[in-house]
């Protein structure tokens, strides 16, 4: 059970429920409770208090009149609470972000009831055309969503970014979701014999197998963190110059300390060597690899490997 709401939370609820009842006299308590996400006893407890509210001198004609007849509720003399409180900036923002976000999912109906609702909100919130939610393009999003919805096993070509390799595998797609701006498919990978998370933009092809899989219970909530470091993964300690702060903002870190000279000492997890090479190459000589030796060597040997291509490879174009 959630903790008992405090006076602020109850007042907020009351100022929302009263206007609705005023507008829908004789509604069933059970319906009102369901609509406002509360239990009937909770609603009754709030309504018990309403007859003591009103205006001075708090004579019967100045108090709100609340009657419950056969489980139906009537409110009179509550004209000052005829409308709900306006949306706060956070509420307006959350509603529009969710609405724009869902409309931006491929396959959404741009002329449907959600779009109409957002248009109406735009009038109240002073223009919603200024908010855009963009999900990363993912070519195979729709076939994967369809496969997940129909519990169809599929074969995918997948670019394993960390290992810099193209792979083919059969998966049972359990859920498709967006987190941190990217689309992911969470599913059972028959090649790994384990549950795996795949980035949909790295899926290069999807082919049907004609097989179905058993759906195991209700889908899990969309995770907000998609990286789960393993205990055996390499921990790399770096000293980053201040302009390389983006690393901390982009990748999960195990620790971050700012040094007196302004550099950042960070520990991050590198599960695959190509991933680490890519990061260290991009950071370049201004970043110091503190530990381990393996990581220190990774940067310079990758740099020499690429350099060989420039010095001995194909000649530059004129």
């Amino acid at each position, binding site marked *: 059970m959630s903790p008992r709401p405090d006076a602020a939370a109850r007042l*907020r609820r*009351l100022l929302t429920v009263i206007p609705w009842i005023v507008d829908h006299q004789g509604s069933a308590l059970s319906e009102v409770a369901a609509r406002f996400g509360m239990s009937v006893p909770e609603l009754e407890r709030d309504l018990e*208090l309403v007859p003591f509210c009103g205006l001075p001198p708090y004579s019967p004609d100045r108090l709100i009149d609340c009657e419950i007849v056969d489980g139906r509720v009537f409110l009179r003399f509550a004209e000052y609470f005829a409308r709900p409180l306006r949306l706060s900036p956070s509420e307006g*923002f959350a509603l529009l972000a969710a*609405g724009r976000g869902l409309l931006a999912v491929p396959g959404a109906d741009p002329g449907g009831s959600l779009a109409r609702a957002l248009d109406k909100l735009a009038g109240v919130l002073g223009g919603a055309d200024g908010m855009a939610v963009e999900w990363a393009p993912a070519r195979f999003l729709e076939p994967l969503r369809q496969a997940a919805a129909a519990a169809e096993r599929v074969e995918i070509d997948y670019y394993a970014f960390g290992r810099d390799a193209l792979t083919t595998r059969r998966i049972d797609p359990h859920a498709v979701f967006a987190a941190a*701006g990217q689309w992911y498919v969470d599913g059972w990978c028959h090649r790994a014999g384990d549950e795996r998370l795949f980035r949909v933009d790295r899926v290069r092809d999807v082919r049907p197998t004609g097989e179905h899989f058993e759906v195991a219970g209700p889908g899990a909530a*969309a995770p907000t963190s998609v990286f789960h470091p393993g205990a055996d993964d390499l921990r790399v300690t770096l000293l980053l110059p201040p302009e390389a702060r983006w690393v901390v903002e982009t990748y999960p870190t195990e620790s971050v300390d700012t040094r007196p000279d302004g550099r950042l000492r960070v520990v991050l997890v590198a599960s695959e060597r190509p991933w680490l090479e890519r990061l260290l190459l991009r950071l370049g000589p201004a970043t110091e690899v503190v530990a381990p030796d393996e990581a220190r060597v990774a940067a310079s040997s990758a740099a020499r490997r690429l*350099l060989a291509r420039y010095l001995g490879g194909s000649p530059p174009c004129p």
Partner: protein
Amino acid sequence: MRFHYSMADRLERLTNLVAVLLETRRALTVEEIGDRVPGYPEEPDSYRRQFERDKATLREIGVPISLESLYAFDQESGYRIHRSDYELPALDLTEDERVALHLAVTAVSLEGGEGRAALLKLGGLVGDPAAPLAALPSVPALPTLFDAYRRRARATFRFRGEERRLDPYGIVFRNGHWYAVGHDPDREATRAFRADRIEGPVALGPVGTFERPGGFDPSSALRDDPWRFGDEQPVTAEILVHPPQAVWVAADLGEEAVAERRDDGSVVLRMAVTNREAFRSFVLGLLDHAEVLGPPTLRDEMVAFLRELGAQGVPQGDR
């Protein structure tokens, strides 16, 4: 003489306080409020404390209480709630539209978001919730930036240690981050700020102080390719990308970037570069699959960069 109620608990008192402040035609002094709302203590100091606490609670849930003069040119001030500030304007949502909003708020969750509270004000939760489909990060600066956008108020905040000002024309979520896009009056140019890099609170100037240009599209104003995000002398770079990466990189950069398709499946791509560091970072991110072909200055820079990095970490005496 104050009213006393045996059953007057705090919730009742707060409800009456809202009703009284909504109904009054002029601002009420603190003393007058105490006379009209039952349930406050008699003792002036503790009454004052309780009233301040109630006022803070009302503001916390978004009740707009204004402090103003009792009468024109009057020194004495008091409190009231203007109906026009308080009430949600009529939206005339249909039940279908409420169902759609309920689905949206449950499918796309804004971390710590107030979407559900908003739905209640719009007439409650109708229909079934959706399965979670997408998560949006939440950033403390966002609601205020959004408020600045919709009320056309100038936003002031600290960004990378500097005080910056922005007339926000829109809010965009891209690549997993929220951006505020608008006009920077100090730089006299369109600028985008990543909202999670804003340090501390955002202050709002007076409402309605700028106009959004007609047809402004925040999405297209937010430049994407980082190598075009700079003020350097523009250079057209050519890179060679090997298969199988060639296909995907070409798809990402667009057909217009393709200068040549070779028989071995590799492609030559042209990129307009105004930020060489970001360009180098992009090419290196492709590891062994890509190479800078030209112009010679960019290729030489890449070689010098790799040489310096390659010389690091080589044990002494090894070369």
